[in-house]
């Protein structure tokens, strides 16, 4: 009995350590992309006048789908590189849910596999549901 408990605790702590690392690297990675994009953006258009941020343009400004962001980013467009970093930043906590799911599967915790799947599906509806309205 004692052995089972300590084994379970170990798995719990391992996955927690891993999630901690994953969050840290996600934030680090995204901020490096954002930094790179920001530097290029300032070099290219730093001396231009500021866009009219008091007016909301929204979707017409472009860069609102992952495909569009990706294609413009590999074409080295600075604003798209920044948005790519933004996507990585948003993806970081979502990826964390996936890793938690793996952790609960390893622990064979059925209740929490179910709960994590519910959270994941809410996320997926939000991402792919076309909730632009």
């Amino acid at each position, binding site marked *: 009995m004692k052995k089972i408990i300590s084994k379970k605790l170990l798995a719990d702590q391992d996955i927690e350590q891993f999630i901690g690392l994953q969050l840290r690297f996600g934030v680090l990675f995204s901020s490096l992309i954002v930094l790179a994009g920001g530097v290029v953006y300032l070099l290219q258009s730093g001396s231009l006048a500021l866009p009219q941020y008091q007016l909301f343009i929204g979707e017409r400004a472009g860069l609102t789908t992952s495909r569009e962001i990706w294609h413009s980013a590999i074409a080295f467009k600075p604003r798209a590189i920044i948005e790519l970093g*933004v996507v990585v930043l948003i993806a*970081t906590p979502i990826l964390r849910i996936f890793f938690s799911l793996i952790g609960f599967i390893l622990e064979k915790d059925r209740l929490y596999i179910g709960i*994590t799947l519910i959270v994941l599906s*809410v996320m997926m509806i939000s991402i792919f549901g076309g909730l632009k309205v």
Partner: protein
Amino acid sequence: MTILTFSLLLLAGAYLAGLVGSLTGLGGGVVIIPLLTLVFHVDIRYAIGAALLASIANSSGAASAYVKEGITNIRLGMFLEIATTVGAVVGALIAVYTPTNTIAILFGSILLFSAAMTLRKKNEEALLVGSTFANRLKLNNSYPTKEGEVSYHLRNVGAGFSIMTIAGIFSGLLGIGSGALKVLAMDSTMHIPFKVSTTTSNFMIGVTAAASAVVYLQRGYMDAGIAFPVVLGVLGGALTGSKLLPKMDVRVLKYIFCSAIAFVAVEMIFNGYNHKF
């Protein structure tokens, strides 16, 4: 103003927002929105997009440290994330139909509430007997303190879950972490020791913000020119804050900051009431 001056000024402002946000526990998002709207006259929708990113960066950065220390209750976080993510998506959806002035007034009110919550007495006592529901959901846990592991139990899970849904809606609608509402649900309602509730709340903010962030990203709320100084500045500020926090007494700072926040909140409400957004 050129793009370069705007970026540098915003970077400095976001750094301060991240620093004070992490020292007081309010998070960077609540400072970013008034900074962008009242100081830089940016449309509140861009400000909400930027604040969401600030919340994710702040939460993920800080959570990585807390999770390692084993204070965060991951099961509790995951269970309550059902409520906050559903709420966040609903909040992001109703945001389109909500006039910006109403959003500004709501934001001001939440800001006042958050300031008051920061100053209240904290729950440090661990509950010894929890409800059967909390038992069945395996929400009871223990956390490390100076005196060794302390185990705690939960009650009022249903009520806490409901408050979390409201916290999620506000988070999606206003682009903030609504940490104050989350702590109210966990601390005051479910009787969780505040160290566990604040770290677990912080852990959840990233996922909650991400749920509405994907909706806002697709709607063009996240402008690259605003996002990059905000993300980098808030992250830098939060990093400095986490280094300074163990070394300083933040009580005085909290009072100063909360009075400043209350002042800003009243200005947001006033401007919203006069249709200036």
